[in-house]
């Protein structure tokens, strides 16, 4: 009886199918977990790199630099200056004075100079956070045995000092202020180029463009540009902004001649290159925001006799603004993290002066990370990890503000 009911060609292996189902469910869940583990590992790896023990050996013992029994750390700016003056050649001192007059320098800056020029700590060895925590005794023993004259210190490379100090070739006194300012300058020009053009193009495509072949070409082209690798934009920037428009990007036509940047490898060129890079992203995001504004608003405005531009300016844009800004912030955070195009455009490898004009040489946070990562010494890798933390904090706050903006101003129709 039972045999008859079951069609022989139809396999109702319910238990087997269920087993299959639960195995695969497990596999799928595991894959998701793997993705999250990857993210956590990435973050832990960076934190692991940014802290840890290091063995420091001073070339000149700081204790010998005490003046009238006042140790180096507690000396005033004037005392530190005299220490500096009596320990380095007068030519070197003059050069420091001409770089930036001592009257304008802060005490911290002078202290940093003393450490850099006279004490000169050498990092003999360093360990990452995990090792420093789990094998502390072992590390202390090794350090005491191999470097008896040196001191072992637990260093947090990621500090507020690190953010405010300028770049330096000494790992202990290096900071990312130059790089952060470079990033800000660059992003300023990126926004100035990409935001008006991007929003303008989005308005054109959504509100004005009729469905003809030219407008379709523009739309397809924008979609394709969004998929072009960023390094290609770097090459384009090198050819156009650095070489062809050198007179503009080096400030020559404005009469600004910065002797250090006779070529066009400047903040301005970098900003414009990144502007072209994020332009398609801004356009696509702004288009979506404009499209979400309901048609009834436009109809009501036309009904009252408003012109097209009046409708767009007073009704469409205010309603799309939060979406446009959110999309722009996301595009900007992409630009802040870009490295490859800026390497090609010609970021400077070592500058210790803050950028002061659009025509300054530039370095940015990601460039700084790249350079420190590429150096074989452990202490520079630690600096790279610390600057990654700075970069991630910047990006996180940008993204958080985008989310807040979206939640605060989003309207439902």
């Amino acid at each position: 009886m039972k045999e008859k009911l079951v069609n022989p060609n139809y396999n109702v292996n319910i238990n087997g199918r269920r087993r299959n189902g639960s195995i695969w469910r497990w596999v799928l869940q595991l894959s998701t977990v793997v993705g999250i583990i990857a993210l956590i590992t990435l973050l832990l790896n960076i934190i692991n790199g940014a802290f840890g023990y290091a063995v420091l050996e001073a070339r000149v013992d700081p204790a010998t630099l005490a003046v009238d029994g006042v140790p180096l750390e507690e000396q005033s700016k004037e005392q530190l200056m005299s220490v500096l003056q009596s320990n380095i050649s007068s030519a070197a001192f003059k050069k420091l004075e001409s770089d930036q007059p001592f009257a304008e320098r802060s005490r911290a800056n002078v202290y940093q100079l003393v450490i850099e020029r006279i004490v000169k700590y050498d990092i003999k060895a360093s360990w990452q956070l995990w090792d420093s925590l789990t094998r502390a005794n072992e590390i202390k023993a090794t350090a005491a045995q191999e470097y008896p004259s040196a001191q072992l210190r637990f260093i947090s490379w990621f500090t507020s000092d690190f953010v405010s100090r300028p770049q330096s070739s000494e790992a202990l006194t290096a900071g990312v202020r130059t790089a952060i300012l470079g990033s800000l300058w660059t992003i300023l020009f990126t926004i100035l180029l990409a935001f008006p053009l991007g929003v303008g193009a989005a308005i054109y495509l959504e509100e004005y463009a009729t469905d003809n072949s030219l407008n379709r070409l523009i739309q397809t082209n924008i979609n394709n540009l969004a998929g072009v690798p960023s390094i290609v934009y770097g090459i384009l920037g090198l050819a156009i902004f650095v070489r062809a428009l050198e007179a503009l990007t080096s400030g020559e036509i404005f009469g600004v001649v910065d002797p250090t940047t006779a070529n066009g490898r400047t903040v301005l060129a970098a900003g414009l290159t990144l502007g072209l890079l994020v332009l398609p992203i801004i356009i696509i995001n702004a288009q979506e925001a404009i499209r979400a504004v309901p048609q009834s608003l436009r109809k009501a405005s036309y009904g009252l006799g408003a012109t097209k531009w009046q409708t767009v300016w007073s009704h469409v844009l205010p309603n799309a603004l939060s979406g446009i800004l959110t999309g722009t912030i996301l595009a900007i955070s992409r630009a802040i993290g870009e490295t490859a195009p800026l390497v090609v455009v010609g970021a400077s490898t070592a500058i210790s002066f803050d950028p002061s004009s659009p025509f300054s040489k530039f370095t940015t946070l990601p460039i700084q990370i790249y350079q420190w990562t590429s150096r074989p010494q452990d202490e520079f890798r630690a600096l790279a990890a610390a600057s990654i933390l700075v970069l991630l904090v910047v990006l996180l706050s940008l993204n958080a503000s985008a989310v807040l903006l979206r939640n605060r101003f989003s309207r439902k129709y």
Partner: protein
Amino acid sequence: MEEQKRISLVTSLQKPSSNLRRRRRLGESIIQGLLFFSGFVSIFTTIGIVYELGKEALLFFQMPEVSILESLTNTQWQPHTGNFGVWPLVTATLMTTLIAMAIAIPLGLAVAIYLSEYATPRARNTLKPILEVLAGIPTIVYGYFALMFMTPLLRSILGRDVVEIYNTASAGLVMGILILPLITSMTEDALSAVPRSLREAAYGVGGTRLEVALQIVLPAALSGIAAAIIIGISRAIGETMIVAVAAGAGPKFTLNPFQGAETITGHIVRISGGDLSYDSIDYNSIFALGLLLFFITLTLNIISQRIVRRFREVYE
């Protein structure tokens, strides 16, 4: 005279009076012109890319040391000895891309299927943003991760004499993690576009969740998934900083993923890292390589758009 007046009266009666006609507004036209211009800038960008890269690439191939035929057959890229075979760069690029896709495709599909077909709305709402964080991390950070985590990991598993410090395997693996969220989100979009009625019908005839997901939803979303994979490949080919940091410096014709090799993008970055002098052979070569990169990724992007348009299953 009288006649004319009458005619003009008639015409003005027939036509609505002129102040009801659409007025020409200069301001409006200027604004429209400006907006059109901003839309057209993107066309300039494309023209700029093709023209500038093409021009310098042409100069490169006109140099006496270089011939197109030679660069397609030679397996050495050594500018200072006059060897410009593009193969070492291409094989390294293919290798990192393959390794990345071997990670990103299965994981990305699995995560997307889980999120779209299995996860509760609450789980989805917490898991998705976490995975999107991965997509927002700058690629240089992944480069650091590849060099400082993946390479030591591979070396401790496979042995230090097998795995070099700089190798394409660790760059590729980390690149897979980078591309995972891209594939996941595109695939998930495609899966959730499949109408509920299809799933309900399949459950109705007794399908298990897995069978519905794999045999009904997945085939229906296939065009979107294929597009996601192609975009992923295009992204992997153009990816720069991971390979620049972790894959090694110096072109090398090898198929061993544990040796160092230089990809197209990695080479461009290394060459242009110093102060590159204009019209040198190195300067022109990065334009030729950039053009190659541009056309590869453009082709892939166009194919992916075609697939979506042509093979999309349309449900009313």
